[in-house]
């Protein structure tokens, strides 16, 4: 993997650079930010996260499992209590709810991990430790022949450091 990494100290500078890169249709741009900023979200204009699909699937499977395990095991080992039906759906709603929450949450986390591509083993390429501290960054995956042009663009928007990595 090779590309250009730029460091910006200011939020509006990085947003301007993102908009410019979008206007020029530069592909494979990654933006770094020490925290979430709506200004960056607006500039990137990324599609809505698909994590919700994982949530829906996980929560549906969880609630189904919660009811199923209670009903199946009650019928397998029937215990008559207080004249209630062997499979009483009202008390089993608690199992359904707890499994709904548990599996729904864990599948949401799995969805985040898959989509955000973590855990990741290597962080030292196309990255700078300043991005967790206070600075913003842009990484553009590209070929060395475009380095000079991109460096000029990024510096024109206020990048304090631009370096090619290969």
């Amino acid at each position: 993997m090779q590309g250009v990494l730029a460091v910006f100290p200011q939020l509006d500078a990085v947003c301007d650079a993102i908009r410019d890169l979008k206007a020029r249709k530069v592909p494979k741009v990654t933006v770094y930010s020490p925290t979430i900023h709506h200004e960056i979200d607006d500039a990137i204009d990324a599609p809505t996260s698909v994590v919700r699909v994982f949530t829906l699937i996980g929560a549906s499977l969880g609630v189904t499992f919660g009811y199923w395990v209670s009903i199946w095991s009650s019928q397998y080992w029937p215990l008559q209590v207080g004249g209630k039906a062997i499979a009483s759906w009202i008390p089993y709603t608690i199992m359904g709810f707890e499994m709904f929450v548990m599996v729904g949450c864990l599948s949401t986390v799995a969805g985040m991990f898959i989509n955000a591509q973590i855990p990741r083993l290597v962080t030292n390429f196309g990255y700078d430790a300043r991005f967790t501290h206070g600075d913003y960054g842009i990484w553009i995956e590209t070929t060395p022949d475009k380095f000079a042009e991109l460096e000029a663009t990024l510096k024109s928007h206020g990048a304090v450091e631009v370096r090619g990595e290969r």
Partner: protein
Amino acid sequence: MATTAKPVQGKIKRPNIPSAGIQVPAVSSFEQVDDEILATLKPSSKWFMGLGLAIAAMLVGASAWTYQIYWGLGNAGYVPPVMWGVYIITFVFWVGIGHAGTLISAILYLFRAGFRTTIYRASEAMTVFAVMTAGLFPIIHIGRPWKFFLLIPYPNWRLLFPQFKSPLLWDVFAISTYLTISTTFLYLGLIPDFAVMRDKETNPIRKRIFAMLSLGWKNTDREWRHFAKMYMFLAAFSTPLVLSVHSVVSFDFAMALTPGWHTTIFPPYFVGGAIFSGFAMVWTILIPIRKWWNLEHYVTLNHLDATAKVVLFTSIMVGSGYLSEFFIAWFSGVAPEQEYFWNRVFGQWWWAGWILLLCNMIFPLSLFSQKLRRNPTWLFILSIIINIGMWYERFVIVVPSLSHEFEPWQWTHYTPSWIDMCFLVGSFGWFFMWFLLFIKQMPVIAIAEVKEIVPPKMKNDHGGHH
């Protein structure tokens, strides 16, 4: 995480500013956030002293458990029919303490309450350790802790399964779900902070550990986008979970026909009480932390003021629950119910009943005073009073009901044994040991989230552009 930040609201006219607009005006840059919060990780003599005390208390409980396992459950002070005592009281107490953390991190997140930002990490950690503490007590209570696995519905050679209509089994599911989700919530919120620690760490071994814990987090737009969505869903799941867990715990009582227990008011009354005691514990741990680690400009008087309003509200809610119980007992015309409630305040258990009413209904009324709401010393004292009151609330629910049931020949007394009291002390030791270890290894205030409410640097920097 994310989008809790709000612009600073106009000019502040009075100290009693609306909770949702609370910010940290004395924090001006991301570098300051990193430096000041990470400075709390350096061990100090006060921390070592606190940890030593906590471990000593924990060992008291561990010794009592060893003694009880060897000599049997007869040492627990149970007198038939009072076969639930300090263990179940303390279990309910710690589950209740655990409520504030998820309420702060999930419900206040969904409500966009600004005052949660700097207090939620400590509260979440408190939740995890409180639920870990609570979870020990049913295991202690069954007497043979190695048989605990029988509560879990796993396929086994005997083809036996637990009774899914039993509130005790609902508890197993509720508490284990709550512990799993609270721990997940705590860990996921820590990932961006682990990345900060990884990048600032110079010791290669610690750096490697933080690199593993941060899962290679790089603060990319892709990570933040999915992270924010995930966080919102987790908060949305955790909100009903918070309400359900203590409702399920209340079913342990409300599903029984015992006088004082068999009432539909229990779920909201338990949830209100749990939030009430949980917030009090947040004060117990946060007020010394903000003082000793110079974090008073992160956890400001405005934050304490806002939490005090929650405590006041929940105190009134719990107080209404107490009064409603008396009314319902009178209005129902059921003699054992009326007898139980009379016994609670004017009979055998009057002292416990009045401790409960004074600590949970009367003292918190002081929070109508803005001056007291903004006085950390008073809030700390009040937090201890409230937690004593809330332990007694559970005592009053468990013991007087069981010792004064339908049959007069069964009426009896109950005094906790020294083993019971050792377990109570041990539970505090266990809780504080984990909490103190946590605050020296991980940031007690969420670094990445505080950065959301700090104005970022701009080309033409006027501040407050966020």
